[in-house]
């Protein structure tokens, strides 16, 4: 059963048709990557799922519930969580507080401190717990943001370029962490440019092009698809 489904999802910005009738189904428990050249409509698609934009027409279903018009925070409370490309952390708060804000509405007060500790150790951020989040290194900020997204105990985790700015080692470690989460039952949908990373984690890949689904399949099928290579991989390999 799909955890997330969009039915002929359309979004117009004035005269610009950014999302063009997308029918997309994300199976529960799958790790799915969304790729496509710049301007393909990946970010808009994410924002539609998150409720930051409302679609011009079409439907979004989450666990068979219609969430097309639900507020963003309602979608999050249903079990969707997101990690943005630019770390969206609270810079003037301490690292521990950042995590606390992610945990406090679903963890009992008595267990809160313990849970914060656990998550900080998992992220290797325990020594920095009392530092201001704004003083962390770029990599640490990424981990903190991942920690906040994961701290919500989501059923569906959305990641917008999770490995942007990471070293190959960090990218690989991120992939392993996501696979560990996936084994615990978290469904993952990631926008990603790094093909090595996509190969590492994705069960299935969807290629968006000009706001429409252009191709879908395993990474090998996508790589073998000449039309995809023409619009996307060709450019990527040429870089």
């Amino acid at each position, binding site marked *: 059963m799909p955890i997330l489904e969009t039915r002929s999802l359309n979004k117009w910005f004035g005269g610009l048709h950014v999302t063009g009738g997308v029918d997309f189904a994300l199976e529960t428990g799958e790790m799915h990557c969304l790729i496509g050249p710049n301007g393909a409509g990946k970010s808009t698609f994410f924002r539609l799922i*998150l409720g930051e934009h409302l679609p011009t027409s079409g439907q979004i279903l989450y666990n068979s519930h219609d969430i097309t018009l639900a507020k963003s*925070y309602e979608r999050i409370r249903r079990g969707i969580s997101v990690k943005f490309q630019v770390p969206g952390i609270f810079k003037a708060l301490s690292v521990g507080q950042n995590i606390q804000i992610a945990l406090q509405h679903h963890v009992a007060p008595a267990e809160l401190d313990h849970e914060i500790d656990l998550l900080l150790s998992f992220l290797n951020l325990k020594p920095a717990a009392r*530092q201001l989040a704004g003083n962390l290194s770029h990599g640490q900020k990424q981990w903190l943001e991942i920690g906040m997204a994961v701290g919500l105990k989501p059923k569906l985790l959305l990641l917008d370029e999770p490995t942007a700015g990471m070293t190959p080692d960090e990218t690989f470690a991120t992939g392993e962490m996501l696979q560990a989460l996936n084994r615990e039952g978290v469904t993952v949908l990631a926008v990603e440019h790094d093909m090595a990373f996509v190969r590492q984690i994705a069960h299935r890949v969807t290629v968006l092009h000009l706001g429409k689904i252009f191709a879908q399949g395993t990474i090998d099928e996508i790589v073998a698809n000449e039309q995809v290579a023409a619009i996307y991989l060709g450019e990527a390999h040429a870089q």
Partner: protein
Amino acid sequence: MALLSRITSILTLLEGPQTLGRGRRFWSGFALVVAAASAYPLFADGYDVGNNVYFFNWTFMALGLCLIWGYGGSLSFGQTAFFGIAGYAYGVLTINLGDAYGLTLFALVAAVLISAVCAAILGYFLFFGRISGVFLGIVTLSVTLVMERFISQTAGPEWHIGTARLNGFNGMGAMPSLTIPWPGGPIVLFPDVALYYVTLVLLILVYLGLRMLVNSRFGNVIVAIRENPQRAEMLGYDVRKYQLGTFIIGSSLAGLSGVLYTSWGNYITPASMGMTAASLPIVWVAVGGRSDLTTTLFGSFLVLIGFQALTIYGSQYALVVMGALLVLTVLVAPSGIVASAVLLVSKRWMRKKPQSGEVS
């Protein structure tokens, strides 16, 4: 036991990452300041003591603005609107009801509640309409100016509520002072020593209460919203409700200031909602350091006392100095002059101890 541990867990909120000052050193200082403030009437003339309650009256409005602006990140330029609403409400209620049976205390509560309801209505349209940033300031300023204009033209005898005449730009007067019913005869809180202590206790309670509020889960979320509203929403918080809650609490504190001021002087005028009045709280809070309750409180006191002294010796120049002070703050110490001084001193202090990088 459960109750006891609950009380301790609430009291631990007095200290936290959202407030400057923790540990024995800070609370000893706090006790000293409270002791000095309590001892002051013993060494001063009752008339002066009563006059100086004036400074306390305004600090509630400053603390309210600190919560809305410093912690919540929404600049309300309209604190004086709620000050005026509550002040006039207190006047109308007490003139009609009289001062027997503790009715003035009822009027105090009712007037603050009226300002809270008005803040809820205005705040609903602002925050649920996703108005933020400079537009929030413009709308709230407009509201207070409209209120001032409206009350200013109510000089005619047809403008009355019950027996209370609004009196337009002349201002409304002759309302009774706050009166506490007492077995040996009611205690009337004229500007004197008794009023001083009541207001001081109220100020301490509000200050400590706000410290607990900003260090609570609610406080964490409002600061998170100030830092990054999108991320806060994407962690499952209804940002608008938190902003509205903050706005109502902060505006009610302005209302409390309005009631205390009106009762203190038995007088309120529309000018208390005008342009000058509306901009002064911003100066107090900005100069002190808007992102902390303690620096706001100290800053407000210093600026109020300085302003008073300047008004006596330099009349209209006082306002020019206030403006210059605000500009200076923005240019030299954007986080507030008192706050910057505290940070400077504590950094020196930290350098002596071998620990760095921690949140002080």
